[in-house]
């Protein structure tokens, strides 16, 4: 059987910023391999380097050191080719509030090289997919938070990307909207799209992800499936039943008190 290439591969990925107080090492040598077709969770406390890593992998931020490939394409040497293969929904739906949902999706189709008729047809298809058909011709400014996230997801899917990056797609949403987004993510993944998901919600990672990595202080400190990570910790603790929260706290050296406000346990 043919071995599919990894959807995302990072080797010793490094990002430094020059700040007022010297160099800040936001990411310090991240190695990652995301398999094609999986939902990969990327967890970490605030400021651990999650978003910086995602921004590098999506070509939005230059790489200080190391290398990364998305869908087999080196993102530093062929950023445009990589952009054809990825879809991006960043923290807080980044949308143009003065366009309607339909106009926005049609514009994205045009920017991905579709002719007008194909762009309009794809917009209609996606609006139906994320159940925004009735709101399609309203300006986005009037959409609820959940509707905006769904539209943001649709916008990331216009060109049928191989890899979809979702940076905290449910932060700030109510439980019902969060469940809807989870269903969308599963449905998108079910069609063969690899999903790279960062989240602050451990239950979200547990529910959705095939595998996950935990980043802390710019370094990967755990990697594996939720079940593997829990089993490994349970074994170290003499068979004690553990949750993904315990894995996270163990990996990042935090206590429950210290973790409060950094990583949230939120049920949908």
């Amino acid at each position: 059987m043919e071995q599919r290439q990894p959807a995302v591969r990072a080797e010793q990925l490094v990002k430094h910023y020059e700040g007022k107080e010297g160099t800040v090492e936001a990411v310090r040598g991240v190695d990652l391999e995301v398999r094609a077709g999986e939902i990969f969770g990327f967890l970490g406390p605030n400021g651990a380097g999650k978003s910086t890593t995602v921004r590098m992998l999506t070509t939005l931020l230059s790489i200080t050191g190391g290398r990364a490939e998305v869908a087999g394409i080196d993102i530093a040497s062929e950023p445009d080719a990589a952009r054809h293969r990825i879809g991006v929904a960043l923290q807080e739906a980044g949308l143009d509030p003065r366009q309607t949902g339909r106009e926005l999706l049609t514009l994205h189709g045009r920017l991905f090289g579709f002719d007008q008729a194909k762009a309009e047809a794809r917009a209609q298809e996606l609006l139906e997919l994320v159940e925004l058909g009735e709101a399609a011709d309203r300006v986005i400014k009037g959409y609820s938070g959940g509707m905006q996230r769904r539209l943001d997801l649709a916008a990331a899917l216009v060109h049928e990307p191989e890899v979809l990056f979702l940076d905290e797609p449910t932060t700030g949403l109510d439980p019902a909207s969060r469940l809807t987004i989870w269903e969308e993510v599963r449905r998108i993944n079910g069609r063969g799209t690899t999903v790279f998901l960062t989240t602050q919600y451990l239950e979200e990672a547990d529910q959705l992800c095939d595998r996950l990595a935990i980043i802390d202080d710019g370094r990967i400190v755990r990697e594996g499936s939720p079940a593997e990570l829990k089993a490994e910790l349970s074994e170290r603790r003499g068979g004690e039943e553990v949750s993904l929260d315990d894995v996270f706290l163990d990996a990042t050296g935090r206590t429950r008190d210290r973790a409060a406000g950094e990583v949230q346990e939120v049920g949908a």
Partner: protein
Amino acid sequence: MSATLSLGKRALREALRQPDALFMTMFIPIFFLVVNTGQAAEIFPSDSTGFLEGQGYGAFQLPITLLLAASFGMAALFLVEEIEGGYFDKLRAMPIPRYSIVLGRLVAEAVKGVVLASIIVLLALPFGITIASGVVGFFLIILLSALWGVVYAGFMQLIALKTRSAAATNSGGLIFFPLLFLTPNFVPRELLTRPMEIAATLNPVTYLMEALRSLILTDLDWGAILPGFAVIAVLGALMLALNVRMIQTYD
């Protein structure tokens, strides 16, 4: 090119959905035209003021009105709003030339500039202002005003890209705005006090204003018109180069 045009169309749609902003862009310059003309028309009667070339003082004030209107473009503010809101990153993650993100907005500014300048000049005609350089002059006035709007918006976009802050972009406008008034906007350059004359001579906007004024008050005088277009060409090339460079290296 097609990405630039698609994004330009979007920016135009955006402008049309903010009619209040378009109204203010028209209202404030016309307000100043009326007020300045009302205050100074008695001082500079058309029959005894040589530099008016037989027209009323309103004709002399029309260039600053056009330049003011062109300088009220919203491109930079919409851009910085997009940077703060995250849509700018969404566009940067697409396989389009990054310069099309800034050029698209400038294309829209050019179209808006043509429409606004045409409206202002056409509104001025019933009030006795004539375009002495004729139909060709009319089109050159519209072109020059619209191009100035593009150049000004482009420099404001640089502030937006550099600071990524709406407040800083607004403040940045205050730095450029005085340039519009360090010009011979009330009297010809030779009638200014010496320090103001030096300031006006060093200010590139002066040549733009003098080109517009020449087109309104006299027949086609290329000696006055070409310096205006030269200023646009030099500032425009600089603005475009800086915009492209800044968005290509945006991190």
